[in-house]
């Protein structure tokens, strides 16, 4: 593959060309073919969610089945087990939304302070936070579960939200971002005007930091939305499940057979629905998160 790349790129540059005609067809085709790899599984998911259970296993995966059952599947997703799917969706929105708002607020405040103030202990604290990025999830999830269990917090919404508030990488990103995008002269000017430090943060800092905040918000949102491990160990009543745990349990119930056999197409349609909101969020907010990531990765 690199072989073709070098050849086409050399060819493209060997002839001096104007900027607008520098596009390489071969490379474009190669990349669009690669894009199929990323998109086809999702296309399969979309098509599969229009099939009923028998079509799902008997017709070609990348084309529609004999019947079009998207509507029936949707109805089934939202009515099976007294409409628990909607409950799971709502839980996911609450967990991800509250955690992401909290995590980005905490990370923004801390990152801004690390970037804009020199205070005793700052370096030590920041290195501990950086080191924490490497701590594996299991090392934490298990003792967190035991601690929460002893204070009767397991099987509550807090068990998911509170641990998700910590985003060491968010602090790191916001520190880099604040160092770049909040000029010290502006802070000095605000101080001259007699503004208090915290007021400067709320009124000047936050506004300049917004692309970085959106980045941290989105990535915490995804992390909590997609989290499976933490809710799996913390929750045992299905009313509190997020979509990930709910779907996984529905799937294993279907695989185990029993009376729940008709659930395969329901699980697939439910999976498809659970993907849509995040994809939309990333599409609409791409300008923010891309510029936010840019700063973080350059200075890394």
């Amino acid at each position, binding site marked *: 593959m*690199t072989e073709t790349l070098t050849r086409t*790129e*050399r060819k*493209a*540059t060997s002839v001096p060309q104007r900027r607008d005609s520098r596009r390489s*067809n071969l490379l474009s085709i190669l*990349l*669009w073919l*690669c*894009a199929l790899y*990323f998109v086809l*599984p*999702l296309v399969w998911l979309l098509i*599969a969610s229009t099939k009923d259970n028998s079509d799902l*296993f008997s017709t*070609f*995966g990348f084309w529609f089945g004999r019947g079009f059952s998207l509507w029936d599947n949707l109805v089934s997703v939202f009515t099976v087990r007294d409409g628990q799917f909607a409950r799971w969706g709502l839980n996911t929105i609450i967990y991800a939304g509250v955690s992401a708002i909290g995590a980005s607020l905490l*990370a923004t*405040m*801390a990152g801004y302070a690390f970037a804009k103030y020199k*205070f*005793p202990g*700052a370096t030590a*604290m920041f290195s501990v*936070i950086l080191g*924490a990025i*490497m701590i*594996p*999830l*299991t*090392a*934490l999830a*298990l*003792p967190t579960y*035991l*601690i929460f269990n002893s204070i009767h917090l397991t099987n509550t919404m807090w068990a998911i939200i509170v*641990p998700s508030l910590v985003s*060491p990488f968010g602090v790191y990103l916001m520190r880099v971002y604040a160092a770049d995008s909040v000029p010290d002269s502006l802070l000095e000017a605000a101080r001259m005007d007699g503004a208090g*430090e*915290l007021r400067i943060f709320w009124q000047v800092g936050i506004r300049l930091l917004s692309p970085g905040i959106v980045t941290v918000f989105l990535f915490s949102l*995804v992390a909590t939305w*997609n989290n*499976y*491990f933490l809710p*799996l*160990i913390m929750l045992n009543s299905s009313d509190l499940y997020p979509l*990930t745990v709910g*779907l*996984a349990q529905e799937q294993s119930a279907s695989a185990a057979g029993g009376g729940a056999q008709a659930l395969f197409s329901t*699980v697939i349609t439910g999976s498809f629905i*659970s*993907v849509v909101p*995040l*994809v939309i969020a*990333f599409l609409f907010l791409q300008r923010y998160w891309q510029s936010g990531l*840019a700063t973080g*990765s*350059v*200075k*890394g």
Partner: protein
Amino acid sequence: MTVSAGPVPRRSAGATAARRQNRAAYALVLPFIIVFAAMLIVPLAYSAYLSFFRTQLVGGEQFAWLANYLRAFTDPSFLGGLGRMAIFLVIQVPIMLGLALFFALALDSGRIRGSKALRLLFFVPYAVPGVVATLMWGYIYGPDYGPIAQVVRAMGLAAPNLLSSHSILGSMMNIVTWEYVGYNMIIMYAALRAIPQERYEAAEIDGAGQFRIAWSIKIPAIRSAIMLTVIFSIIGTFQLFNEPSLLHTAAPNSVGDDFTPNFYAYNVAFVNQDVNYAGALAFLLGIVIAVISYFVQTAQNRRQGEKR
């Protein structure tokens, strides 16, 4: 501190200002530090504490020194999982990051039609929950009804069993690659965009090919971003949980309950109810990750030093 050279009244004003700023800084950092300590430091310390004990039917909890750690070093389940993850690290991570780098460089070269759309299409899998991705690929791999098997059979060949114990590791690598190529690509692409154009425009005028420019100007310029993706990938690999846990349900004969160290620690803790041993496993896993990340980083720094 710098104000101390000034006249006396200004000095005290400077000192109050510094104190006021310190207070503001602590007020801003404190909320994060509290949650950080409660959700990271305390559980970590508790986990370490637990790992030094042993629960016995007779006598209850007893201090066991390093017994749990010694047990882990001879536990074929733990070592097997670590070995699988080492294979994963050596094969999957270079493929994933190589692809990500290739895509990032290609999109950055400005030679691609529809590069904006491509960037998003590559990235979309990141927004798909790991659970859904694994579930979906589990169906796609299906030896009887999966579309891959259908296509292969339509060509008149025998359909491969992608969920068999021989191919499951490769199948899992594919799922992880699918999920994270776009994420890593975006990090590298963002860093590439930040390189000032003058740095390579001169080389372009001198007739250097794109491959040459990428190799000797662009890649060195984004080394820190690449390093970031390497470290994240090492951490991610050793923490694999969603994929083995869901494939365990789909193909229990191929994916055992000790397939990855993380999945094994979970099963030790919640199925076998042995929290002490699980604590030791989790702690060891953290040490393994830290050591590998450290070596990769120092090796990289040394190479950078030699080049200068």
